């Protein structure tokens, strides 16, 4: 626990005191929110668009997920940077329990995600976000996106610990970018056409996104499958991250 606390505190401190680390993880979800909720709001007039809480809320469900996932992905960048600078090699010599290192980065990822979620939510509320779900729905919503945050952080950390260089950044980020955008981002699943519909059918993020939007609308759907699939992905990613740690230990 002491290792996790120390790693988490250091990472959060570095992040909060360096705008170059705070801004990018937040900026892109906000860009997407502005461009989609503002520029595409007429999409809710497309025949068959049946989401009751409005287009701003529909897009918020996606951007929330993106902000949480980016909190995890950008924490994985920090893991790579720490290896590149040699800090992690020294940390592994000093840490009594090295699993605490992963736990520490996870704490930092949660802090980043919470910050992103808070800023995105305030801006979305100012832009007309309507939340029809109750308190229980909101607990479900934010728990689900934090699980996605853990999945992103652990999967990215597994890559970062194996490659141990900032050049790993595209290998960390690109899969999540694709996973997020190969889901029903702009329209409900039934309105998708072409190859993206095929990809969205098998994309686990589709379930999460639909559950998110159900919570926001106050009409939860696919809750159990969404939690099960994200819990499974987070568990597999934990195994992957521990494998990364072992790889880093062998290289140290």
């Amino acid at each position, binding site marked *: 626990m002491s290792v996790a606390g120390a790693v988490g505190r250091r990472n959060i401190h570095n992040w909060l005191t360096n705008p170059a680390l705070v801004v990018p993880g937040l900026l*892109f979800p906000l860009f997407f929110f502005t461009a989609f*909720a503002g*520029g*595409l709001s007429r999409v809710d007039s497309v025949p068959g668009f049946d989401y009751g809480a409005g287009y701003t809320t529909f897009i918020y469900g996606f951007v929330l997920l993106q902000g949480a996932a980016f909190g995890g992905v950008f924490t994985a960048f920090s893991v790579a940077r720490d290896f590149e600078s040699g800090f992690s090699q020294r940390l592994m010599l000093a840490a009594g329990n090295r699993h605490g290192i992963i736990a520490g980065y996870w704490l930092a990822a949660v802090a980043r995600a919470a910050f992103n979620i808070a800023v995105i939510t305030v801006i979305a509320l100012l832009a007309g976000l309507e939340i029809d779900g109750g308190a229980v729905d909101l607990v479900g919503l934010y728990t689900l996106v934090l699980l996605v945050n853990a999945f992103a952080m652990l999967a990215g950390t597994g890559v970062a610990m194996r490659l141990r260089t900032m050049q790993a950044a595209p290998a960390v980020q690109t899969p999540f970018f694709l996973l997020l955008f190969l889901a029903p981002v702009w*329209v409900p699943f039934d309105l998708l056409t*072409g190859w993206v*519909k095929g990809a969205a059918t098998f994309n686990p993020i589709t379930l999460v996104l639909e559950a998110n939007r159900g919570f926001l609308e106050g009409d939860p759907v696919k809750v159990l499958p969404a939690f099960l699939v994200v819990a499974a992905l987070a568990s597999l990613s934990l195994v992957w991250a521990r494998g990364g740690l072992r790889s880093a230990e062998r290289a140290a």
Partner: protein
Amino acid sequence: MSRSTVALQVGVLARRSIVRTLRQPALVVPAIVFPLILLAISSSGLASVTDLPGFPTDSYFQFALAISFVQGALFSANSAGTNVASDVESGFINRLSLTPLRRAALMLGQLAGILSLGLIQALTFISVGLAFGAGFESGFAGVLTIVALSLLISLGFGCLGAFVALRSGSGEAVQGAFPLLFAALFLSSMNLPRELIEIDWFRTVATWNPVSYMLEGIRSLMIDGWDTEALALGFGCAGGLALIALVAASAALRTRMVRT
């Protein structure tokens, strides 16, 4: 200094700029692949938008293809800025300032790499458009006009990237400015025609945003045929950006060479 000497200087620097740009896959590949990925995803994900009354075409792919040209040009800004910043950081420009090289030759030479990248992008996007069934209502002459407009847009954003690099002398500053350029694209009529944008403030921003007119200029040639107004606005905005950014970059280069 004779004209032939200046031309020789431009030629040497242009060759260096082109070779250096094309030898960096990390700059060239994302500038072509990312716009195509966005095109592939948005054209399928937003296909149902064509059911909106007043949407100008029944193919969202055809509508979205124009985004690739402008997005590719934004990558040109990043590429130009990164190369120029690298020249500043490595002391290359300092060393050149000790030679009788003309500043205009240096600036023109640096921009040659951007134009070569812009040409590759434009030809790739047009080929992809043709391969996947996008029509070009204005015909072959329209395709050539799209290439010309696309190069002008690349030049404008490339000069902007060069300006940031020369002014700051830092590759990090160029990377930091990159999201701001993306904001300009996101706050335009990239996803829907302006008349179909429902949110008032967004429509107002998109109307004042020159990127909207660059997109609409390219789109008009694909969807409508020859629309003089859209083309005049598209070339006007792209040319205006190129002129202002070129003047600013030249002034920044003068300051930097004086500092040296």
